[in-house]
């Protein structure tokens, strides 16, 4: 019997959540006023949780390292949010969303959690519209939808290419309302550095005030970690510069298990790397694959000529192009899930068909759509005899209305006009499905410590489908955690305020104080970024899109080496008690240097391929990921043993009662 108890309710899958809600304990309104909750992170998961918990009557202390809660990285999500509304009448249902998500995750997620997610997805849209989120609408005034990868229905709600922004600002608005009422105390420019555990329960945090540099103590009856994912372990990713694993990692070191760390999502459509100076990568939304066709030249000579600059994409005739996704996956075409699309791009580029100077780029071409939309528009505008030029002009306008901001972003970064010339794209690290292990109630293995959104591992298995991250963040924050946390807090109605003078708080603070001073005292020769870049390169090369035993073993040794060097040769300017962004960065990179090793250990342990985790040793004859359900249908939850290099593995078996495990097929 595993030490892990996932607390999945019994009963039929579509009744689990409602039955569970009906039977867990509640905290009455008067008692909620006596209970404090800390929420770390103000993205969709944290912002939504803070707002909902405060509305319910709890006293919330919310933390973010940015200068305002509105800046959390959820804001950068572009494409959309899924919900099983079936407004299009195209056969969608809660079951289909559930099924698609389990299948998309390559059968490595928990059925009960995913079904709950699909159930509450419909409430999210209602809620957001009520909050004033300006989703895209059709001319009749009703909500518009589009398609995303891994689905054959249109269930994605969107606000141009800025859906994340609009949803986050909705959550931020709801938070602002509670901040105005004094129910949320907002601590911006504060970064969590340690968890305080009293009598075995999470009772507070130590946070660094980024402006003054002082360490501050905060107490609460429960602590919620909503600090996002750890994609920045790769140095280059689509994450924000400040996105980090620190809050999640520090609770891991205090006893929270870390689940499936090797499941990372490499997003197929990002702007390719242009040079050494690059600090981050920029995503081009998956929604573009609704209308963009992905291709590389069919002949190696053409690819070479393009790389040399003697030939342009538009010079190539139709029959000389290889629309490899449409060729390999006729049923889903350009809308295969992300992991499949990314690997297919890598396969073509590795085979020498890449199209930019580095050889690591493929085309995303809108010419067909521009023409198709132009023709439609000409018809509806009563221009039956429109010239080709007029048609293209009309088509460009339609595409601009749909994706204008993305095209503009591409133009600003690459200095090339995507209306005339196909975009160049390449996969980049985007999201991490792994994260802190949580039970059905979203509680970690530390009592009273919860994890929501991308910070936990629960819903996406080994690969996340597009437009599902926003769904999960808001579902956890608005509709799941506010219910489940009451069951735990029901025991705390008489506890009273937790004193920050307890010895556990001093000990947790001293630990960080000493850690920071020892980091500052190293005064070596290399910057924090130097180490981060080196770590990122190891991760990308060996723990990236494809992995094998030899590479992973090498990576583990190499990360240990970089980590040792970091602690002997890093140079952090300034002192602890001041505004010191380099010290903040050093703390984050120090944690990445430990997490990176755990990711490699996890990837080494999982000798099967599944979703975003592709082991070279485990593939079908035609190069698709090959799962091994008899040995690996489990969640790998790692316990910190005191030695980063020797974590203890705990397995949570995944039980599939409603969906049959089959080979994932998008052909």
């Amino acid at each position, binding site marked *: 019997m595993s030490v892990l108890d996932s607390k999945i309710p019994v009963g039929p899958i579509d009744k689990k959540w409602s039955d569970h809600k009906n039977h867990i304990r509640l905290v009455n309104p008067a008692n909620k006023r006596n209970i404090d909750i800390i929420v770390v992170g103000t993205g969709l998961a944290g912002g939504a949780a803070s707002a909902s918990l405060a509305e319910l009557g709890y006293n919330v202390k919310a933390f973010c390292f940015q200068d*305002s809660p509105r800046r959390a990285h959820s*804001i950068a999500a572009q494409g959309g949010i899924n919900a099983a509304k079936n407004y299009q009448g195209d056969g969608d249902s809660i079951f289909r969303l559930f099924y698609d998500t389990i299948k998309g995750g390559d059968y490595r997620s928990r059925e009960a959690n995913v079904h709950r997610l699909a159930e509450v997805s419909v409430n999210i849209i209602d809620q957001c519209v009520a909050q*004033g989120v300006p*989703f895209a609408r059709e001319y009749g005034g009703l909500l518009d939808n589009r398609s995303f990868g891994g689905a054959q229905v249109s269930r994605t709600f969107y*606000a141009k290419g800025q859906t994340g922004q609009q949803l986050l600002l909705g959550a931020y608005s709801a938070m602002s*309302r509670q901040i*105005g009422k004094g129910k949320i105390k907002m601590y911006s420019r504060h970064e969590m550095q340690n968890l305080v555990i009293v009598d075995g329960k999470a009772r507070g945090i130590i946070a660094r005030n980024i402006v003054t540099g002082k360490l501050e103590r905060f107490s609460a009856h429960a602590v919620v970690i909503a600090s996002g994912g750890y994609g920045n372990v790769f140095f280059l990713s689509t994450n924000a510069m400040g996105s980090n694993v620190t809050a999640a990692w520090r609770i891991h070191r205090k006893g929270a298990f870390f689940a499936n760390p090797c499941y990372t999502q490499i997003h197929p459509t990002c702007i390719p790397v242009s040079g050494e100076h690059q600090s981050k990568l920029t995503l081009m939304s998956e929604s573009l694959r609704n209308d963009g066709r992905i291709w590389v030249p069919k002949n190696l000579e053409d690819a070479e000529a393009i790389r040399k600059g003697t030939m342009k994409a538009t010079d190539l005739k139709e029959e000389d192009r290889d629309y490899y996704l449409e060729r390999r996956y006729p049923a889903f075409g350009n809308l295969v899930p992300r992991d499949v699309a990314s690997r297919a791009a890598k396969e073509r580029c590795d085979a020498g068909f890449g199209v930019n100077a580095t050889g690591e780029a493929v085309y995303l071409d809108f010419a067909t759509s521009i023409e198709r939309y132009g023709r439609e528009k000409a018809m509806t505008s009563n221009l039956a005899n429109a010239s080709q030029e007029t048609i293209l002009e009309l088509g460009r306008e339609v595409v601009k209305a749909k994706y204008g901001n993305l095209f503009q*972003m591409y133009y*600003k970064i690459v200095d090339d006009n995507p209306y005339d010339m196909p975009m160049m794209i390449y996969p980049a690290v985007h999201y991490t499905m792994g994260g802190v292990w949580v039970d059905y109630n979203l509680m970690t293995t530390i009592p009273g410590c919860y994890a929501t959104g991308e910070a936990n591992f629960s819903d996406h298995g080994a690969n996340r489908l597009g437009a599902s991250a926003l769904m999960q963040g808001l579902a956890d924050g608005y509709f799941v955690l506010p219910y489940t946390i009451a069951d735990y807090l029901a025991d705390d109605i008489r506890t009273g305020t937790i004193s920050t003078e307890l010895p556990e708080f001093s000990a947790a603070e001293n630990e960080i104080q000493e850690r920071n001073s020892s980091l500052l005292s190293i005064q070596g020769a290399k910057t924090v970024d130097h180490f981060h870049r080196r770590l990122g390169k190891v991760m990308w090369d060996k723990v990236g899109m494809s992995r094998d035993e030899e590479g992973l073993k090498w990576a583990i040794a190499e990360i240990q080496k970089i980590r040792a060097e970091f602690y002997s040769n890093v140079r952090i300017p300034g002192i602890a008690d001041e505004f010191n*962004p380099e010290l903040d960065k050093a703390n984050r990179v120090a944690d990445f240097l430990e997490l990176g090793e755990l990711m490699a250990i996890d990837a080494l342990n999982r000798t099967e391929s599944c979703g975003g985790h592709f082991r070279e040793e485990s593939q079908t004859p035609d190069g698709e990921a090959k799962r091994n359900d008899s040995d690996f249908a489990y969640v790998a939850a790692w316990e910190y043993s005191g030695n980063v290099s020797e974590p203890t593995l705990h397995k949570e078996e995944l039980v599939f009662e409603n969906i049959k495990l089959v080979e994932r097929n998008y052909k």
Partner: protein
Amino acid sequence: MKLTLKIWRQKGPNDKGQMVTYPVDNISGDMSFLEMLDVLNEQLIETGDSPIAFDHDCREGICGSCSLYINGEAHGPDRAVTTCQLHMRKFHDGETIYIEPWRAKAFPVIKDLVVDRSAFDRIMAAGGFISVNTSGNTIDANTIPIPKQDADAAFEAATCIGCGACVATCKNSSAMLFVSAKVSQLSLLPQGKVEAKERVLNMVNRMDEEGFGNCTNTGACEVECPKEISLENIARMNREYFKAALSAE
């Protein structure tokens, strides 16, 4: 490219601050402005100097963290971009670039190029929301059809990223563009009309209390706004404000 940077250095809120000159070399046109500053900071750290503090996060023009007054313009010479999306190809070899923080009474400097924009959060807390609890038990999202042009106009206003370029650009340090964008978004939607009156009064009052100046219609904010938020929003807010202020409750 070889450049000369003249950068505002200020140790803390009470320090007087001054412009300091730094040469940088090997800057490529494909670098973003912030990546150019990364290069400088790496040099400064390696030579034992203190790096330049500046706010930044997403580096794709959406979080609103980055700021910087570059050669006398908020977010620099390019239009419709934030500093993180401004690329060095907009500058030429040998150029001298002046870099300063946002300057406004309501945005005190924290360090170097970092300012405190929490006044924006306080204006939002005064009324930048629709008072609906997140129960999930609201009406179905398609119950109220919203004309596409209203939804689109609300969306355009809602794309404001709260960076503060409008305030920094305005000779009066007015926050009218920022406030009016939120007021417009919510008053254009049926869901937000219910409390439109209180909202505009509360937000404008708070804006005044925070020490932002008045609008004198120079329109500079619209020009420098990285999201091209329209001046029409200010006109709409003024209408809303007068309506609210003149109608007795």
